[in-house]
Every structure is written in C-alpha cells, then in structure tokens.
C-alpha cells in the first residue's frame, strides 16, 4: 500500500454496499409516496376533487414513478427525464388549449375556496370551454409534472421532499385557512420521516427503531385524536383559541385605553366615569361625524359578528361585480350624491388610544385608498394597526340625506341609473343577510306584536310604518325614568348602555323588516370642534365611544339611525351610558351635552403622538421582557457550563491513578498561578519560587516547592503518588484559589470563575 492510499484507522458500518444496492427502491418509493402525497394535498386544498376525479392525476403520477424505478434499475434516469420532458412538450403542443382550460378550472376552484375561507377574491380565469376531456388531459399533464419533479428531487436530494411535503400542506392551510386539513399532517409527516430515515441523510445514524417509534407515535396520536374529538375537547380548544385570538388582537391593536367591546359583551364593563384618550380628529371643515369602527351583521351567542366568509363566498360574484363597478358599500353615500353636489371635506384621524384593528370612518366616506376591490367584506374595514390616516368625506353628509334620496329617486341621469342598478343588487344582498333575528327575540317581539297589532305580518309594513312601530317598541323597552319597561329586553347585558340600546334597536328594526346593523365607534360633533382651541383638531376620548344602529336606507346605504328620516325621535332616548355627566333630557351626541363636560380625571394626558407612544411603550416592554428572558437563559447556560467543566475536572482530580490525578491537579493549579501573574513561560516551575516568595510569603512557597516536586514524581517516576500526596496537591490548589480571591479584583474573579471556569 502506498503512502498516498493510507487513510489510517476506520470504524464504520458494514452494510453500506447493501444500502447502495437497494438505492433504487428507496428513491423510487420516496418519489412515489411524495408524488401521491403532493397530489392529494394540492387537490385537497384546492377542492379540485369536488369538480373532477383525482384518480387520473394520481394514476399519471404513479405510472411515471414506476417507469422511473425501471429506468433507475437500468441506470437510464437521464433518458427517463429527457423522454418525459419531450412527452410533456408534445402534450403542450397538441393539447395546449385543453391544458390551459383545465388549469383555469383548477385555478377558479382554488379561488372559490379562497373566497370562502378569507372573503378575498383571487383573479378569475376566464374559462369558457372546459370540458371533461380538458380536465382529464390537464390531470394527466399535472400528474406527470409532479412525478417528474418528485423523481428528480428524490434522486438528487431526497431530504428536500421531506420538507416540501409538510411545507406545501402548511402553507396551503395558512393561505386558504383550511384548518380541517390538519389531520393530513399525520400521513405527510410519516412520509417525510420515512424519506428522511430511508434516504441518504444521516444513513449511518438512524435505523429501523426510529421508524417503529414514529409508527407507534402515529398510532397513539390517531387514537388520542379520535378520543379527544368525542370528549368535548372541541369546546375547550375553541375557548383557548378564542382567548388567544382576543389576546392577540388586544396585543396588536389595542391600548390600555381602548374601550369599545367590538360586539362582544361577555365580561365587558363599560367605564363611563373616566375619560381615556382615543382619537385626534382633524377636519378641514368641522362637521358631525359618526366614525364607525366595528360593525356587526349577525348576533349570535350574545355577541355581534361580521358577515361570515361563507356568505361572502356565496355572493362573491355579486360583491366582486359591485366592487369592480366602483360600488363600495363603505362609500355608497358618495356614489349616491350627485357629482355636482359633492363638496369634499378632508378628515385626518390620529388613533392614539382606540383599537387600531379598524379604520374609524363615517357613512359619507369618499372612496379612497382604504378600500380594496378584492376584499369582498361588506362590514368593517380593517386598519391592521394603522394609526394615522386621511380620507375625504362628502361635506355635510347628514344634511344632504333627504336631498340626495330625492335626487336618486327622480334623476334619469345615466350615472344615477347605473348606481341605482348596483344599489338594487346590493339592497337584495342586504335584505337577505342583514335581517336575522335570534329565535327567542323573534318570539318575544312576536308575542308583544300580536297583543298590540293583531295578526298583521310585521314584515308587510311599509318603511314609514315600520319605523314608527320600531320607535314605539323602543319606547316600551326604554321607558321614562321610574317607569317599568313593558317588554323584556332581548339583551340584558350592558344594561342602560348604547351597546344594549343599539343591539335592541337593530333587532327591532329587523323584526319590522328594516335591514339594520350594529355599529360601534366615536361620535364627533360640530360643538366639539367649536370648543377646541386647536383649530380644526378635536381630541376624542372614550366618553364619545358608543354604539348605534345603522339602517339600510334604500338608495343611500348604511346611515346611522339618528340621521335617518323619521327616526329623529329616537335621539330623545336616554343614552345613559354617556349621560352620567350630561343631562338626561337630551343625550343626543349631536346636541353635545354629554361632551360638554370635562373629563373628571383623565388618567393620562393624550399626546399628539399618543398612538406611537403606546406602541413604543409596548415595544419597550416586549423587548425588555425578551432581553430579560435571554439574560436568564444565558445565566442558566453559564451555570450549567461551569458545573459540567468543574465536574469533569473533579473526575480527573479523583482519577484512580493517583499520579495522573496529582498531575492534573498541579496542571490546573499552574493555570491558577498564571492568573496571579505567575507565568512560567518555557522555563522550570521552580523559577517562580522567588516571585511567589515575594508575593505570598515563605509558607506558601514551601508548599509550592513541595507540590512541584510531587508533580515531577507523578510525571516521571515509576513510583506511584500516594493518596496523601494527592491530597497535599489538592490542598495547595485550594490555597491558590484563596489567594486569587484575596488578590484579584472582583470582575476578574467573576471572569475566571464563571467564564473561564478555572475553579
């Protein structure tokens, strides 16, 4: 053997050649499983299986993986790849249109799922002639492409597949919010682990045991999951999840001063005594603004919720059509007002203490950057933490309602006719989806209606009569002070607050056939602008926070109930929540009574950039926490590290060979002496004796000489060191440590002890 060929010693497994021989099985099976799993995941996530069978796509993938295995055996993989690419190329040439049509159908189905889960539209692929043949050809083509990729990756770097499979599933689930696909993780992870274990990665380390372990875990997991699903686990899990989401929402968007319940009245306590900073609203021209944030469409389990994504998905064609035709429910009023009548007023909202999850915008909003045409949601507009924003409103919107309504009804202008067409479509949607009243409320109202109005169907009332009846009912819910309510309130929570009042009003309106929704936000009045000394900026605090009912005014859109025609009397109702410092006679925010009073004891002076300050404060707190945790972890690591090093040292010091032990102790002591400035260099240890004598006296020097002699004996003599001699060396080390403690400054001591771990 020549010198070049020598590799020294080896210690290795002896079955590598066997592994190499069986490589084709591992690679082909990995490719087959990955291909099948990827196809199942993709079709499952996209819902492709609902419109066409998944067997052709699976069969195409499987056949090609088997062909690949055969090619692998004969070492003709390159031929396989080239051949398959050529076939795919031919398919594109011959069946290009069908493949594109099939892909279009696939994409649109994916879009349907996306809308259903997120309420957002994806671009729609225009597929006019998608036959079953086209879907079949697309399936074969797609299956072949997936097979080609998986075979190639399985051969070159199988580990990539083990990451890609759960990765695709995870991304898909997050993107499409397909939570029920979580169970797919079990086969996906099993396949990933199989690929990892059977592939080339860590082949010398992992064996069958791991597979058995994972197999068992999978079985136990499945059993556990099955049991948990039937054991009321879901409720608890949902509670946890809800709490987490709420906490996340609070953490991300809310401040300590965010006061609105956002439709959830459970555990909410209205604080009417203290005033917390919320918004700074700057208007080009002062006017009354109903700045709504959260709006609720459905009342379930004692809380208001927005229209669910399923409803949006069912109406996606309509809503998307409205959006692309510049009919946005949030800016409908602007669309209704005649163009020549529009006078814009620029409003800037600086959110300093309110929840920044929503934009606070009024009903007379002019369309702008806040609206996204792909967002089908008809309720609140999400701000996602944005705290300063500017928008335009139709100036004096509240005063233009009647005139606009008349203009819309009478005008024959083409633009107005187009608007009316879109409005009509949207009105149908609203009538279908903003009329739900909980069953028990319906029964309660029905009972009272039957007593007072006979058998006439409340839905048959015209708009005006319905309004009058609503007002009558509301008076009975909320009688004058000292009188007993004639009807039991449908919502007993948050008694005597605008949240209760708005909820009851919305339900009653709906009972009488008027589409209505619940809205929360801040009301800014002209008087507030008048009182402020800062020009057109007004500081809005939590006392202006409230809820109100919004009525769908035919032809105009969602208008706060107080502003709608014929509903003026409603304003006479006490808004007791806000009236603790205002008169009971007129709680109308427009009257400004409740807002005239100065806050009793503002807990914090709202800063102009209060929102940012809160953010900074939160960021500071979070980063402090992170740093504290990191410091604690570091401390733990340092302590553990030192313990391990000291333990190793002690093991050496108590070596069964006492000579070895003494030599170790002496060597360690020499390092300690270096810390005391007694560095030996290349000479003899005895050369240090003089310096030691000068520094630490004769007694220590004698010990040093004795121990050095013992070390020579331990190192070079065939005579063994005795246990006593070893103890003597150890004693000298202890003395040296004491010298360190006496003669070295604390910071260096800490460095030597905890970082260098010398003792």
């Amino acid at each position, binding site marked *: 053997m020549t010198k070049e060929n020598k590799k020294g010693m080896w210690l290795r497994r002896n079955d590598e050649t066997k592994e190499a021989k069986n490589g084709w099985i591992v690679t082909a099976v990995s490719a087959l499983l990955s291909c099948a799993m990827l196809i199942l995941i993709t079709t499952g996530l996209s819902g492709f299986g609902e419109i066409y069978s998944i067997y052709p796509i699976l069969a195409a993938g499987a056949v090609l993986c088997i062909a690949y295995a055969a090619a692998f055996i004969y070492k003709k993989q390159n031929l396989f790849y080239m051949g398959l690419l050529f076939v795919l190329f031919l398919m594109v040439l011959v069946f290009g249109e069908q493949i594109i049509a099939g892909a279009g159908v696939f994409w649109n189905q994916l879009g349907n799922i996306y809308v259903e889960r997120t309420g957002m539209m994806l671009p729609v692929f225009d597929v006019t002639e998608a036959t079953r043949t086209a879907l079949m050809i697309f399936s074969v083509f797609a299956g072949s492409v997936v097979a080609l990729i998986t075979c190639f990756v399985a051969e070159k770097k199988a580990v990539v597949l083990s990451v890609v499979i*759960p990765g695709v599933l995870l991304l898909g689930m997050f993107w499409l919010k397909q939570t029920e696909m979580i169970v797919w993780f079990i086969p996906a992870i099993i396949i990933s682990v199989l690929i990892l274990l059977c592939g080339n990665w860590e082949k010398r380390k992992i064996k069958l045991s791991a597979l058995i372990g994972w197999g068992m875990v999978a079985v136990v997991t499945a059993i556990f999951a099955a049991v948990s699903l039937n054991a009321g686990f879901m409720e608890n899990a949902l509670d946890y999840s809800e709490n987490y989401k709420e906490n996340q929402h609070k953490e991300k968007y809310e401040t300590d001063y965010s006061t609105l319940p956002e439709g959830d009245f459970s555990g909410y306590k209205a604080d009417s005594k203290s005033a917390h900073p919320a918004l700074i609203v700057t208007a080009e021209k002062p006017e009354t603004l109903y700045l709504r944030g959260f709006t609720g469409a459905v009342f379930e389990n004692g809380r208001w919720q927005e229209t669910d994504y399923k409803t949006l998905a069912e109406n996606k064609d309509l809503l998307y059509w409205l959006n692309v035709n510049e009919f946005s429910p949030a800016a409908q009023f602007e669309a209704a007002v005649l163009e020549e009548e529009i006078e814009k007023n620029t409003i800037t909202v600086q959110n300093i203490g309110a929840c920044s999850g929503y934009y606070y915008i009024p009903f007379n909003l002019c369309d702008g950057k806040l609206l996204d045409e792909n967002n089908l949601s008809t309720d609140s507009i999400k701000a996602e933490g944005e705290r300063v924003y500017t928008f335009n409103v139709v100036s004096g919107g509240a005063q233009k309602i009647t005139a606009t309504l008349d203009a819309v009804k009478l005008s024959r202008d083409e633009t107005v006719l187009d608007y009316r067409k879109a409005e009509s479509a949207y009105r149908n949607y609203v009538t279908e989806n903003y009329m739900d009243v909980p069953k028990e409320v319906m029964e309660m109202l029905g009972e009272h209606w039957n007593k007072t109005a006979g058998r006439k169907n409340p839905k048959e009332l015209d708009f005006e009569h319905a309004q009058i009846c609503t007002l009558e009912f509301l008076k009975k819910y909320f009688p004058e002070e000292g009188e007993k309510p004639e009807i039991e309130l449908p919502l007993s929570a948050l008694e005597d607050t605008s949240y209760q009042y708005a909820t009851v009003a919305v339900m009653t309106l709906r009972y009488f056939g008027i589409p209505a929704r619940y809205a929360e936000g801040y009301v800014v009045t002209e008087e507030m602008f008048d009182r402020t000394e800062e020009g057109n900026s007004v500081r809005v605090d939590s006392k202006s926070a409230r809820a109100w009912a919004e009525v769908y005014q035919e032809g105009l859109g969602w208008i706060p109930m107080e502003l709608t025609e014929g509903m003026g009397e409603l304003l006479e109702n006490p808004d007791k929540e806000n009236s603790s410092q205002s008169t009971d006679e007129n709680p109308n925010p427009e009257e400004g009574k409740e807002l005239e009073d100065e806050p009793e004891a503002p807990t914090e002076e709202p800063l102009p950039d209060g929102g940012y300050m809160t953010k900074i404060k939160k960021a500071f707190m979070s980063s402090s926490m992170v740093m504290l945790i990191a410091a604690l972890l570091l401390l733990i690591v340092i302590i553990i590290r030192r313990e391990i090093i000291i333990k190793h040292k002690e093991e050496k010091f108590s070596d069964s060979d006492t000579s070895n032990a003494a030599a170790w102790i002496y060597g360690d002591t020499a390092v300690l002496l270096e810390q005391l400035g007694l560095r030996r260099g290349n000479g003899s240890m005895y050369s240090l004796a003089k310096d030691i004598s000068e520094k630490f006296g004769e007694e220590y020097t004698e010990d040093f000489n004795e121990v050095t002699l013992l070390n020579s004996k331990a190192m070079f003599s065939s005579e063994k060191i005795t246990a006593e001699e070893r103890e003597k060396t150890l004693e000298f080390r202890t003395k040296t440590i004491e010298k360190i403690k006496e003669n070295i400054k604390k910071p260096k001591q800490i460095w030597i002890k905890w970082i260098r771990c010398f003792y």
Partner: protein
Amino acid sequence: MIAMKLCWLILEGIFVLFFLYFGSSTAFALALLLLLLPPVNTLINLFVKKKIKVSLNSEPNLRKGESGEVEIIIKNNSVFPVFHMGIKLLAENQLNGQKSEHNVSTWLPSKGKQTETINTGSDYCGRIKVSVKRARIYDCFGIIGIGFKCNAKAYVTVQPDTFETIINLSPNSRALDESDIYSQEKAGDDLTEIYQIREYVPGDSPRQVHWKLSNKFGKLIVKEPALPITRNVLVFWERTGESGNLDIIDAQAETIVSVCKSLLDQSIQFTIGWNDTDRNICILHEVSDMDKFIGVITRIMRATGAKEGVSGAGLLVQTRPEALCAHMIYIAEEPQSEVTAMQGEGNVSMLLCGKTPLDGALMFDSEHYEQQLSQIDL
C-alpha cells in the same frame, strides 16, 4: 437524531400554531400528546437503563488494510422496549494514538437482545482498542437521552507486515558467544551436539555418519549437528522522542518485528524490550522461539510512544542494566543521549528513521525501509 428532534419541534410548533389560530381541537390533542410523550418515555427509560448490558466482541488479529468485524451485543432485560439507543464507539490504535469514533443507533426489544456489527481496521499496525465512549437511551423522538455506564471493550491487533532482512552477527570480543543451549527446531553446525538422527540422503557428509547405529540397523544413519543458541542479543525500541508521524511509527514497528523474525530464523535467542512511556518503566521479554515472539507482538503493538519524557535508553541503563549484552539493536526515531551509556556495555547497532543522522547509525525512512534494511551487520 437531529432529524427526529427537528421533526418533533416542527410538528409541535405546527400543532400549537394551528390550535392557537384556528382552535382546532385535533391540533391541541396532537400538541399535548407530542409534549407528553418524551418525558413519559424518559421516566420509563430511567428504569430500563439499569437493565441494559452491552458487550463487544471482535476478531483478534487483522492484516494491515483488512477490515474486521466488531460485534456489539446489547441485551435488554426489562419488559419495556427502548425506541432509540445511541452508542458512541471509540477505536484507538494504542501504538500510534490514532483515534476514530463512530455512532451506532439501534433499538432494543423488550426482554431481548440486539446485535450490531461494525467494521474496523487500519492501514497501520498496532493494537486497536474498541470501547464504548458513551451510551445513551432516548425517548421515541430522540429528544431526552439518558446515559449509562458501559465498560465493554474489545481488542483487535493489526499485525505488522514483515520484510526480508539478513542480520550478520559478528563476534564481540568483549562477550562470549558460547552457549550450552541448542535449538530444538533447526540443525546447526556444532558437531559436538546432535540435533537429530535420520537416514542418510545423498549429499550428507561422511563425517555425519553414525557408524555405530548404522551397523546396528543395517543401513546408513547420519547425525545432524545442533545449532547453539546464543542469548547475547538485545533488540530495544526507543519509544521516547517520537514525532507522532504514523508512517514512521509503522516503519519502526515493522522493522523491529522483521529484525526479530530474522534473528529467530537464525535460531538466535534474544531479548526484546521497549519503554512504557505512560508508566516510565522498561519492558523486556526473553524470546526463544516463534510462539513466544507471537505472544510478544501483541504487547509491542500497544507500546505507546511519547515526544518527551524519560528516555527508554536511560531507563534501561538505570533500571535494567542486567539486560545489556554484547549485541544491542537500538531502534528509534531520534536517538536519546543515554544511548551512549548502552554503548559502554556492548555493540549498539542503531537503526534510526528520524531526521537527525548519526555516525555509525543505519538510517532508514518510512518509504524505503525495506530496501534500506535488507542487510544489517551487528
């Protein structure tokens, strides 16, 4: 193992994330299960580790470059299986200090045993000590490991290759070569002692004919002269002052074995010695025949060298002066100063393969030592 841990971590993360974001009870159940499995399994492992026994078996001898099997037999006497077990094996060539490690992963059935086989070998001669450096049992995800003591060891001797060398032993005036011990294996030329009696074959000298017996048996019987065995040779391997170059150590080991073999071929009995650098003692063995020498080879193959320390020559002169004899073969990488004291007691033939040339020494290198040492005059 890393793969398992990563998988566990990713899975746990995914399930927690899904549970928190989507309120999936399945995800919650899976996350909880994943979290509980490792500690529960570890508690069981604390009991199981006391019931595990590991032993190592290996082939005793190998040629250079040849692979031999080392069997790891692990017995689990508990009723619980072990999902994952990791053993770190350490192989150390005791002659040249070369080390190699290998991780073996396996599992153990309940009340059963598992046998794993690994290969070992070396391109350099020496005794390979295979031991268990670390043994751990893990939970089913390989997250929490519990170590346990394991003293299993196995030894494999990689035998040195030998080369032909002719040793010419010249008489030393200061010592007598006479001996009253004769070889039992080989005929010699000392007619005063008979090695064996056999029938005459053409070519035998008439002087060898045993007339008395020939007359008695009625056919020609000859007597073969015996070979006197001398004990005046010491072969000493200096293990101090070596650079750690594996090729040089290998060349020296092969040289010492080849020289000894050549001496045995000539029926020269000799003493072989080296210094133990760990314990600072001199080790000497009387070698009278091949069997004894084979036994000694195993010991030579674990003679650890050192760069510095008390020299072998010094130890020999000071602690074993009786071993010094008329002919001494001193094999070293670099000669130690105490070798001059040896020269005072007899002829010292130095075979050196270091970088420092020395007058009277036979220099060789690790590449051409077979040619350079084909003939040695003592």
